[in-house]
Protein backbone atom coordinates (compact mmCIF):
# COMPACT_ATOMS: atom_id res chain seq x y z
CA UNK A 1 0.00 0.00 0.00
CA UNK A 2 1.34 3.42 -0.90
CA UNK A 3 2.01 5.63 2.12
CA UNK A 4 0.11 8.86 2.58
CA UNK A 5 3.26 10.41 3.95
CA UNK A 6 6.65 8.87 3.38
CA UNK A 7 9.49 10.24 5.49
CA UNK A 8 13.02 9.16 4.62
CA UNK A 9 16.30 9.88 6.44
CA UNK A 10 15.08 13.16 7.79
CA UNK A 11 17.71 15.23 9.58
CA UNK A 12 17.06 18.62 11.11
CA UNK A 13 18.21 20.79 13.99
CA UNK A 14 18.40 24.27 15.39
CA UNK A 15 21.66 26.26 15.42
CA UNK A 16 23.79 23.39 14.11
CA UNK A 17 22.58 21.05 16.90
CA UNK A 18 20.62 18.19 15.39
CA UNK A 19 17.21 17.52 16.90
CA UNK A 20 16.28 14.74 14.51
CA UNK A 21 18.70 12.37 12.81
CA UNK A 22 17.92 10.07 9.92
CA UNK A 23 14.29 9.61 10.82
CA UNK A 24 12.19 7.44 8.53
CA UNK A 25 8.48 6.87 8.98
CA UNK A 26 5.47 5.89 6.91
CA UNK A 27 1.97 7.11 7.57
CA UNK A 28 -0.67 4.97 5.93
CA UNK A 29 -4.34 5.38 5.07
CA UNK A 30 -6.55 5.55 8.18
CA UNK A 31 -3.46 5.10 10.30
CA UNK A 32 -3.39 6.04 13.99
CA UNK A 33 0.24 6.77 14.68
CA UNK A 34 1.38 7.56 18.19
CA UNK A 35 4.75 9.31 18.35
CA UNK A 36 6.12 9.20 21.86
CA UNK A 37 9.37 10.27 23.44
CA UNK A 38 10.81 12.52 26.12
CA UNK A 39 10.48 16.29 26.07
CA UNK A 40 13.00 17.78 23.69
CA UNK A 41 13.12 14.54 21.74
CA UNK A 42 12.06 16.24 18.52
CA UNK A 43 8.38 15.27 18.41
CA UNK A 44 7.05 18.76 17.77
CA UNK A 45 9.87 19.38 15.31
CA UNK A 46 8.86 16.28 13.37
CA UNK A 47 5.32 17.66 12.97
CA UNK A 48 6.69 21.07 11.97
CA UNK A 49 8.79 19.41 9.29
CA UNK A 50 5.82 17.47 7.96
CA UNK A 51 3.73 20.66 7.91
CA UNK A 52 6.48 22.53 6.08
CA UNK A 53 6.92 25.11 8.84
CA UNK A 54 10.64 24.35 8.87
CA UNK A 55 12.75 22.84 6.08
CA UNK A 56 14.83 19.70 6.68
CA UNK A 57 18.63 19.77 6.51
CA UNK A 58 18.52 16.55 4.57
CA UNK A 59 16.18 13.72 3.79
CA UNK A 60 12.74 13.85 2.25
CA UNK A 61 9.07 14.05 3.11
CA UNK A 62 6.90 12.86 0.26
CA UNK A 63 3.16 13.41 0.32
CA UNK A 64 0.88 11.21 -1.76
CA UNK A 65 -0.43 13.01 -4.81
CA UNK A 66 -3.29 15.35 -4.04
CA UNK A 67 -2.42 15.49 -0.36
CA UNK A 68 -0.81 18.89 -0.58
CA UNK A 69 -2.80 21.31 1.57
CA UNK A 70 -4.84 18.45 3.02
CA UNK A 71 -2.83 18.08 6.21
CA UNK A 72 -4.67 19.26 9.30
CA UNK A 73 -2.38 20.61 12.00
CA UNK A 74 -3.38 20.90 15.65
CA UNK A 75 -0.40 22.58 17.31
CA UNK A 76 0.34 22.61 21.00
CA UNK A 77 -2.15 24.37 23.20
CA UNK A 78 0.24 27.21 23.98
CA UNK A 79 1.29 27.88 20.42
CA UNK A 80 -1.08 30.63 19.35
CA UNK A 81 -1.06 34.27 20.38
CA UNK A 82 -3.41 34.48 23.38
CA UNK A 83 -3.13 38.24 23.24
CA UNK A 84 -5.08 38.33 19.98
CA UNK A 85 -8.76 39.16 20.54
CA UNK A 86 -10.83 36.67 18.55
CA UNK A 87 -14.05 34.68 18.85
CA UNK A 88 -14.12 30.90 18.68
CA UNK A 89 -15.85 31.01 15.30
CA UNK A 90 -13.42 33.51 13.80
CA UNK A 91 -10.53 31.37 15.00
CA UNK A 92 -12.03 28.27 13.37
CA UNK A 93 -12.57 30.28 10.19
CA UNK A 94 -8.85 31.11 10.01
CA UNK A 95 -8.42 27.40 9.22
CA UNK A 96 -9.96 28.12 5.79
CA UNK A 97 -7.14 30.50 4.91
CA UNK A 98 -4.35 29.14 2.76
CA UNK A 99 -1.61 30.39 0.47
CA UNK A 100 -4.09 30.92 -2.37
CA UNK A 101 -7.01 32.72 -0.74
CA UNK A 102 -5.55 34.89 2.03
CA UNK A 103 -6.56 38.06 0.21
CA UNK A 104 -10.17 36.98 -0.39
CA UNK A 105 -13.16 37.35 1.92
CA UNK A 106 -14.64 34.30 3.60
CA UNK A 107 -17.35 32.73 1.45
CA UNK A 108 -20.70 31.39 2.63
CA UNK A 109 -19.25 27.91 2.08
CA UNK A 110 -16.49 28.66 4.58
CA UNK A 111 -19.01 29.94 7.12
CA UNK A 112 -21.32 26.94 6.69
CA UNK A 113 -18.46 24.53 7.10
CA UNK A 114 -17.20 26.36 10.19
CA UNK A 115 -20.70 26.29 11.73
CA UNK A 116 -21.10 22.59 10.97
CA UNK A 117 -17.77 21.72 12.54
CA UNK A 118 -18.36 23.94 15.57
CA UNK A 119 -21.64 22.11 16.07
CA UNK A 120 -19.98 18.72 15.73
CA UNK A 121 -17.33 19.71 18.27
CA UNK A 122 -19.97 20.89 20.73
CA UNK A 123 -18.75 24.47 20.40
CA UNK A 124 -21.65 26.07 18.55
CA UNK A 125 -23.09 27.71 21.66
CA UNK A 126 -19.68 29.13 22.45
CA UNK A 127 -18.95 30.43 18.95
CA UNK A 128 -19.26 34.10 19.90
CA UNK A 129 -17.11 33.80 23.01
CA UNK A 130 -13.57 35.10 23.23
CA UNK A 131 -11.22 32.14 22.77
CA UNK A 132 -9.27 33.21 25.85
CA UNK A 133 -12.36 32.88 28.03
CA UNK A 134 -12.75 29.21 27.13
CA UNK A 135 -11.48 26.28 29.19
CA UNK A 136 -8.46 24.20 28.22
CA UNK A 137 -10.60 21.43 26.77
CA UNK A 138 -12.70 23.88 24.80
CA UNK A 139 -9.65 25.65 23.37
CA UNK A 140 -8.23 22.27 22.39
CA UNK A 141 -11.45 21.53 20.51
CA UNK A 142 -11.30 24.94 18.82
CA UNK A 143 -7.79 24.06 17.62
CA UNK A 144 -9.04 20.73 16.28
CA UNK A 145 -12.01 22.45 14.61
CA UNK A 146 -9.65 24.94 12.95
CA UNK A 147 -7.74 22.03 11.44
CA UNK A 148 -10.92 20.23 10.35
CA UNK A 149 -12.48 23.17 8.57
CA UNK A 150 -10.00 22.72 5.71
CA UNK A 151 -11.23 19.12 5.30
CA UNK A 152 -7.91 17.37 5.87
CA UNK A 153 -7.03 13.80 4.99
CA UNK A 154 -4.40 13.51 7.69
CA UNK A 155 -4.72 15.07 11.13
CA UNK A 156 -1.53 15.79 13.05
CA UNK A 157 -1.99 16.61 16.73
CA UNK A 158 0.68 17.89 19.10
CA UNK A 159 0.02 16.96 22.76
CA UNK A 160 -3.77 17.13 22.38
CA UNK A 161 -4.50 15.87 25.90
CA UNK A 162 -1.83 17.66 27.90
CA UNK A 163 -3.60 20.90 28.88
CA UNK A 164 -7.08 19.50 29.48
CA UNK A 165 -8.88 18.01 32.47
CA UNK A 166 -9.83 14.35 32.71
CA UNK A 167 -13.39 14.70 31.36
CA UNK A 168 -12.31 16.76 28.37
CA UNK A 169 -9.53 14.28 27.77
CA UNK A 170 -12.06 11.48 27.32
CA UNK A 171 -14.12 13.67 24.95
CA UNK A 172 -11.08 14.54 22.89
CA UNK A 173 -9.92 10.91 22.74
CA UNK A 174 -13.37 9.81 21.53
CA UNK A 175 -13.36 12.60 19.01
CA UNK A 176 -9.95 11.66 17.61
CA UNK A 177 -11.10 8.05 17.43
CA UNK A 178 -14.19 9.11 15.50
CA UNK A 179 -12.15 11.26 13.13
CA UNK A 180 -9.83 8.34 12.57
CA UNK A 181 -12.69 6.58 10.77
CA UNK A 182 -12.38 9.20 8.03
CA UNK A 183 -8.74 10.20 8.11
CA UNK A 184 -5.28 9.20 9.22
CA UNK A 185 -4.26 10.52 12.62
CA UNK A 186 -0.80 11.25 14.00
CA UNK A 187 -0.60 12.08 17.68
CA UNK A 188 2.59 13.34 19.29
CA UNK A 189 2.75 13.08 23.07
CA UNK A 190 5.07 12.60 26.02
CA UNK A 191 2.27 10.89 27.93
CA UNK A 192 0.92 8.01 25.87
CA UNK A 193 -1.21 6.39 28.59
CA UNK A 194 -4.60 7.66 27.40
CA UNK A 195 -3.86 6.52 23.86
CA UNK A 196 -2.85 2.97 24.77
CA UNK A 197 -6.16 1.37 23.79
CA UNK A 198 -6.58 3.21 20.49
CA UNK A 199 -3.31 3.64 18.62
CA UNK A 200 -2.38 1.37 15.75
CA UNK A 201 1.16 2.29 15.04
CA UNK A 202 3.82 3.39 17.50
CA UNK A 203 7.00 5.41 17.00
CA UNK A 204 9.45 6.31 19.75
CA UNK A 205 11.42 9.42 19.06
CA UNK A 206 14.46 10.77 20.84
CA UNK A 207 16.56 12.36 18.11
CA UNK A 208 16.55 8.97 16.38
CA UNK A 209 13.41 7.07 15.66
CA UNK A 210 14.02 4.02 17.80
CA UNK A 211 11.06 1.96 17.14
CA UNK A 212 8.47 1.88 14.51
CA UNK A 213 5.92 -0.87 14.28
CA UNK A 214 2.73 -2.40 15.44
CA UNK A 215 3.98 -5.00 17.87
CA UNK A 216 4.56 -4.46 21.57
CA UNK A 217 7.55 -2.59 22.86
CA UNK A 218 10.33 -4.22 24.74
CA UNK A 219 12.38 -2.75 27.53
CA UNK A 220 15.59 -2.32 25.56
CA UNK A 221 13.89 -0.05 23.08
CA UNK A 222 12.33 1.97 25.86
CA UNK A 223 15.63 2.24 27.63
CA UNK A 224 17.21 3.65 24.52
CA UNK A 225 14.42 6.16 24.04
CA UNK A 226 14.08 7.40 27.57
CA UNK A 227 17.52 6.59 28.94
CA UNK A 228 16.17 5.52 32.29
CA UNK A 229 12.90 3.80 31.65
CA UNK A 230 11.58 2.76 35.02
CA UNK A 231 10.81 6.13 36.59
CA UNK A 232 9.77 7.78 33.40
CA UNK A 233 7.44 5.02 32.43
CA UNK A 234 5.66 4.85 35.78
CA UNK A 235 2.57 6.29 34.21
CA UNK A 236 3.92 6.33 30.70
CA UNK A 237 3.75 3.43 28.32
CA UNK A 238 1.04 0.92 29.21
CA UNK A 239 2.68 -1.79 31.25
CA UNK A 240 1.32 -4.61 29.17
CA UNK A 241 3.55 -3.49 26.36
CA UNK A 242 6.70 -3.94 28.37
CA UNK A 243 8.62 -7.00 29.35
CA UNK A 244 9.75 -7.19 32.96
CA UNK A 245 12.81 -5.23 34.02
Amino acid at each position, binding site marked *: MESLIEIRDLTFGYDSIPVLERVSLDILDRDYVLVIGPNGGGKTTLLKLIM*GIVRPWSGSIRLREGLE*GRLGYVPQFSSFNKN*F*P*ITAREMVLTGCID*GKNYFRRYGSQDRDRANRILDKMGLYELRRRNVNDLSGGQIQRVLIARALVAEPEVLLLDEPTTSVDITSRATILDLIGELNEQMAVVVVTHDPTPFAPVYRHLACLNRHLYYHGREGLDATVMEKVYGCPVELLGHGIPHTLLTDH
Partner: protein
Amino acid sequence: MLDVLSYAFMQNAIAASILASIICGVIGPFIVARRMVFISGGLSHTAFGGLGIAYWMGANPLYGAVVFVLGAAVAMAGLEKKVDSSDLLIGIFWALGVAIGIVFIHMTPGFTPDLMTFLFGNILTVPRSDIVTALALVILICLVVFVFFKGFVSIALDEDYARARGIPVDALNLCMMVLMALSIVIMLQVVGIILVIALLTIPVAIAREITFHFRRVMVLSALWGISICLAGLAISYIAELPAGAAIILLGAFILGLIKAGKWFSRRLFLGRKAAR
Protein backbone atom coordinates in the same frame (compact mmCIF):
# COMPACT_ATOMS: atom_id res chain seq x y z
CA MET B 1 -15.08 79.59 20.84
CA LEU B 2 -16.33 77.99 17.62
CA ASP B 3 -14.80 80.75 15.48
CA VAL B 4 -11.44 79.08 16.14
CA LEU B 5 -12.58 76.44 13.63
CA SER B 6 -12.36 79.00 10.84
CA TYR B 7 -8.59 79.24 11.23
CA ALA B 8 -6.68 77.19 8.67
CA PHE B 9 -4.23 75.90 11.30
CA MET B 10 -7.13 74.51 13.33
CA GLN B 11 -8.69 72.87 10.27
CA ASN B 12 -5.34 71.28 9.49
CA ALA B 13 -4.99 70.13 13.08
CA ILE B 14 -8.43 68.51 12.96
CA ALA B 15 -7.73 66.83 9.62
CA ALA B 16 -4.37 65.56 10.92
CA SER B 17 -6.04 64.22 14.07
CA ILE B 18 -8.65 62.32 12.08
CA LEU B 19 -6.10 60.86 9.66
CA ALA B 20 -3.74 59.83 12.46
CA SER B 21 -6.62 58.24 14.36
CA ILE B 22 -7.70 56.21 11.36
CA ILE B 23 -4.14 54.94 11.08
CA CYS B 24 -4.01 54.07 14.74
CA GLY B 25 -7.27 52.15 14.33
CA VAL B 26 -6.02 50.19 11.35
CA ILE B 27 -2.46 49.43 12.46
CA GLY B 28 -2.56 49.82 16.25
CA PRO B 29 -4.60 46.66 17.02
CA PHE B 30 -2.08 44.55 15.08
CA ILE B 31 0.85 46.17 16.87
CA VAL B 32 -0.74 45.65 20.28
CA ALA B 33 -1.89 42.08 19.57
CA ARG B 34 1.56 41.11 18.32
CA ARG B 35 3.35 42.83 21.19
CA MET B 36 5.24 45.01 18.75
CA VAL B 37 4.72 48.25 20.64
CA PHE B 38 8.42 48.60 21.35
CA ILE B 39 9.33 47.85 17.78
CA SER B 40 7.17 50.83 16.87
CA GLY B 41 8.94 52.81 19.60
CA GLY B 42 12.31 51.89 18.10
CA LEU B 43 11.12 52.75 14.60
CA SER B 44 9.78 56.14 15.64
CA HIS B 45 13.10 57.04 17.24
CA THR B 46 15.08 56.05 14.16
CA ALA B 47 12.93 58.64 12.38
CA PHE B 48 14.77 61.25 14.40
CA GLY B 49 17.95 60.36 12.51
CA GLY B 50 16.21 60.95 9.20
CA LEU B 51 14.76 64.25 10.39
CA GLY B 52 18.23 65.42 11.45
CA ILE B 53 19.86 64.56 8.15
CA ALA B 54 17.01 66.17 6.19
CA TYR B 55 17.36 69.41 8.18
CA TRP B 56 21.11 69.36 7.61
CA MET B 57 20.59 68.87 3.86
CA GLY B 58 17.82 71.45 3.79
CA ALA B 59 15.32 68.88 2.53
CA ASN B 60 11.75 68.24 3.68
CA PRO B 61 12.13 66.46 7.06
CA LEU B 62 9.17 64.22 6.21
CA TYR B 63 11.18 62.58 3.42
CA GLY B 64 14.16 62.07 5.70
CA ALA B 65 11.95 60.38 8.25
CA VAL B 66 10.28 58.17 5.63
CA VAL B 67 13.62 56.94 4.30
CA PHE B 68 15.03 56.23 7.75
CA VAL B 69 11.98 54.51 9.20
CA LEU B 70 11.43 52.40 6.09
CA GLY B 71 15.09 51.38 6.12
CA ALA B 72 14.92 50.48 9.79
CA ALA B 73 11.67 48.51 9.28
CA VAL B 74 13.11 46.45 6.45
CA ALA B 75 16.35 45.88 8.38
CA MET B 76 14.44 44.81 11.50
CA ALA B 77 12.19 42.44 9.57
CA GLY B 78 15.25 40.91 7.93
CA LEU B 79 17.51 40.77 10.98
CA GLU B 80 14.85 39.60 13.42
CA LYS B 81 15.08 36.07 12.07
CA LYS B 82 18.86 35.96 12.30
CA VAL B 83 19.37 37.71 15.62
CA ASP B 84 17.95 35.86 18.59
CA SER B 85 17.04 38.89 20.58
CA SER B 86 14.89 41.37 18.69
CA ASP B 87 14.86 43.31 21.95
CA LEU B 88 18.55 44.01 21.53
CA LEU B 89 18.02 45.14 17.98
CA ILE B 90 15.23 47.53 18.94
CA GLY B 91 17.40 49.12 21.61
CA ILE B 92 20.29 49.65 19.21
CA PHE B 93 18.11 51.16 16.46
CA TRP B 94 16.40 53.35 19.03
CA ALA B 95 19.65 54.84 20.36
CA LEU B 96 21.36 55.02 16.99
CA GLY B 97 18.50 56.98 15.42
CA VAL B 98 18.46 59.57 18.16
CA ALA B 99 22.27 59.90 18.10
CA ILE B 100 22.34 60.47 14.34
CA GLY B 101 19.58 63.04 14.65
CA ILE B 102 21.34 64.97 17.37
CA VAL B 103 24.69 64.98 15.52
CA PHE B 104 23.18 66.30 12.29
CA ILE B 105 21.02 68.91 13.98
CA HIS B 106 24.12 70.04 15.86
CA MET B 107 25.99 70.34 12.54
CA THR B 108 23.20 72.32 10.84
CA PRO B 109 24.44 75.93 10.77
CA GLY B 110 22.29 78.58 12.36
CA PHE B 111 19.54 76.11 13.17
CA THR B 112 18.51 75.62 16.77
CA PRO B 113 15.26 73.70 16.68
CA ASP B 114 13.22 73.07 19.75
CA LEU B 115 13.78 69.44 20.67
CA MET B 116 10.43 69.38 22.39
CA THR B 117 8.80 69.84 19.00
CA PHE B 118 10.40 66.62 17.78
CA LEU B 119 9.43 64.75 20.88
CA PHE B 120 5.88 65.98 21.30
CA GLY B 121 5.17 67.27 17.81
CA ASN B 122 3.08 70.31 17.13
CA ILE B 123 -0.26 69.51 15.72
CA LEU B 124 -1.09 73.20 15.35
CA THR B 125 1.67 73.75 12.78
CA VAL B 126 1.00 70.83 10.45
CA PRO B 127 1.20 72.26 6.91
CA ARG B 128 -1.51 71.52 4.32
CA SER B 129 1.02 69.68 2.11
CA ASP B 130 1.66 67.18 4.91
CA ILE B 131 -2.08 66.62 5.25
CA VAL B 132 -2.28 65.71 1.56
CA THR B 133 0.66 63.30 1.88
CA ALA B 134 -0.90 61.81 5.00
CA LEU B 135 -4.25 61.35 3.24
CA ALA B 136 -2.55 59.48 0.39
CA LEU B 137 -0.77 57.22 2.85
CA VAL B 138 -3.96 56.60 4.83
CA ILE B 139 -5.70 55.44 1.67
CA LEU B 140 -2.75 53.19 0.77
CA ILE B 141 -2.54 51.66 4.25
CA CYS B 142 -6.29 51.05 4.50
CA LEU B 143 -6.32 49.45 1.06
CA VAL B 144 -3.42 47.09 1.82
CA VAL B 145 -4.85 46.07 5.20
CA PHE B 146 -8.28 45.53 3.64
CA VAL B 147 -6.90 43.30 0.88
CA PHE B 148 -4.55 41.23 3.07
CA PHE B 149 -6.68 41.36 6.23
CA LYS B 150 -7.15 37.59 6.53
CA GLY B 151 -3.45 37.00 6.02
CA PHE B 152 -2.46 39.59 8.63
CA VAL B 153 -4.95 38.17 11.11
CA SER B 154 -3.81 34.59 10.66
CA ILE B 155 -0.16 35.58 11.11
CA ALA B 156 -0.86 37.70 14.18
CA LEU B 157 -2.89 34.86 15.68
CA ASP B 158 -0.60 31.95 14.92
CA GLU B 159 2.45 32.45 12.76
CA ASP B 160 3.48 28.78 12.63
CA TYR B 161 0.00 27.75 11.61
CA ALA B 162 -0.07 30.37 8.89
CA ARG B 163 3.24 29.02 7.61
CA ALA B 164 1.85 25.49 7.69
CA ARG B 165 -1.08 26.66 5.57
CA GLY B 166 1.26 28.04 2.94
CA ILE B 167 0.59 31.72 3.64
CA PRO B 168 3.61 33.89 2.65
CA VAL B 169 4.40 34.81 6.25
CA ASP B 170 7.72 36.56 5.63
CA ALA B 171 6.38 38.71 2.82
CA LEU B 172 3.31 39.72 4.82
CA ASN B 173 5.42 40.42 7.90
CA LEU B 174 7.66 42.70 5.85
CA CYS B 175 4.56 44.35 4.43
CA MET B 176 3.21 44.93 7.95
CA MET B 177 6.54 46.42 9.05
CA VAL B 178 6.49 48.83 6.10
CA LEU B 179 2.90 49.84 6.89
CA MET B 180 3.90 50.38 10.50
CA ALA B 181 6.84 52.52 9.39
CA LEU B 182 4.64 54.67 7.14
CA SER B 183 2.05 55.04 9.90
CA ILE B 184 4.69 56.19 12.32
CA VAL B 185 5.90 58.87 9.92
CA ILE B 186 2.37 60.22 9.53
CA MET B 187 1.78 60.24 13.26
CA LEU B 188 5.12 61.95 13.92
CA GLN B 189 3.67 65.08 12.36
CA VAL B 190 0.76 65.05 14.72
CA VAL B 191 1.98 64.12 18.15
CA GLY B 192 5.75 63.74 17.86
CA ILE B 193 8.08 60.83 18.36
CA ILE B 194 7.35 59.78 21.93
CA LEU B 195 3.61 60.12 21.70
CA VAL B 196 3.31 58.06 18.52
CA ILE B 197 3.55 55.09 20.85
CA ALA B 198 0.75 56.41 23.01
CA LEU B 199 -1.59 57.03 20.08
CA LEU B 200 -0.92 53.52 18.78
CA THR B 201 -1.72 51.97 22.14
CA ILE B 202 -4.17 54.03 24.24
CA PRO B 203 -7.14 54.02 21.82
CA VAL B 204 -6.50 50.30 21.17
CA ALA B 205 -6.38 49.58 24.90
CA ILE B 206 -9.70 51.40 25.35
CA ALA B 207 -11.26 49.50 22.44
CA ARG B 208 -10.03 46.18 23.82
CA GLU B 209 -11.75 46.94 27.11
CA ILE B 210 -15.00 47.23 25.19
CA THR B 211 -14.90 44.37 22.67
CA PHE B 212 -12.89 41.32 21.71
CA HIS B 213 -13.96 41.26 18.08
CA PHE B 214 -10.87 42.24 16.17
CA ARG B 215 -12.67 44.24 13.49
CA ARG B 216 -14.65 46.12 16.13
CA VAL B 217 -11.41 46.78 18.00
CA MET B 218 -10.11 48.43 14.82
CA VAL B 219 -13.18 50.60 14.29
CA LEU B 220 -13.47 51.56 17.95
CA SER B 221 -9.76 52.38 18.14
CA ALA B 222 -10.16 54.80 15.25
CA LEU B 223 -13.26 56.39 16.78
CA TRP B 224 -11.67 56.72 20.21
CA GLY B 225 -8.53 58.10 18.59
CA ILE B 226 -10.56 60.81 16.82
CA SER B 227 -12.55 61.66 19.96
CA ILE B 228 -9.47 61.87 22.15
CA CYS B 229 -7.54 63.95 19.63
CA LEU B 230 -10.36 66.44 19.07
CA ALA B 231 -11.27 66.71 22.74
CA GLY B 232 -7.58 67.02 23.59
CA LEU B 233 -7.24 69.83 21.06
CA ALA B 234 -10.18 71.65 22.59
CA ILE B 235 -8.75 71.25 26.08
CA SER B 236 -5.35 72.47 24.96
CA TYR B 237 -6.99 75.52 23.34
CA ILE B 238 -9.06 76.39 26.38
CA ALA B 239 -6.47 75.62 29.03
CA GLU B 240 -3.54 76.78 26.88
CA LEU B 241 -1.69 73.50 27.22
CA PRO B 242 0.61 71.80 24.67
CA ALA B 243 -1.76 69.97 22.29
CA GLY B 244 0.09 66.64 21.94
CA ALA B 245 0.53 66.20 25.66
CA ALA B 246 -3.08 67.20 26.35
CA ILE B 247 -4.33 64.57 23.86
CA ILE B 248 -2.32 61.81 25.48
CA LEU B 249 -3.15 62.77 29.04
CA LEU B 250 -6.83 62.80 28.17
CA GLY B 251 -6.52 59.36 26.54
CA ALA B 252 -4.75 57.89 29.53
CA PHE B 253 -7.35 59.44 31.85
CA ILE B 254 -10.24 57.89 29.88
CA LEU B 255 -8.53 54.51 29.83
CA GLY B 256 -8.04 54.78 33.59
CA LEU B 257 -11.72 55.64 34.07
CA ILE B 258 -12.88 52.66 32.02
CA LYS B 259 -10.52 50.29 33.82
CA ALA B 260 -11.65 51.60 37.21
CA GLY B 261 -15.31 51.40 36.19
CA LYS B 262 -14.91 47.79 35.13
CA TRP B 263 -13.07 46.93 38.33
CA PHE B 264 -15.77 48.47 40.52
CA SER B 265 -18.64 46.91 38.60
CA ARG B 266 -16.96 43.51 38.92
CA ARG B 267 -16.54 44.01 42.66
CA LEU B 268 -20.14 45.08 42.93
CA PHE B 269 -21.32 42.10 40.90
CA LEU B 270 -19.26 39.66 42.96
CA GLY B 271 -20.46 41.31 46.17
CA ARG B 272 -24.09 40.85 45.15
CA LYS B 273 -23.44 37.28 44.17
CA ALA B 274 -21.83 36.59 47.55
CA ALA B 275 -24.73 38.26 49.38
CA ARG B 276 -27.13 35.91 47.69
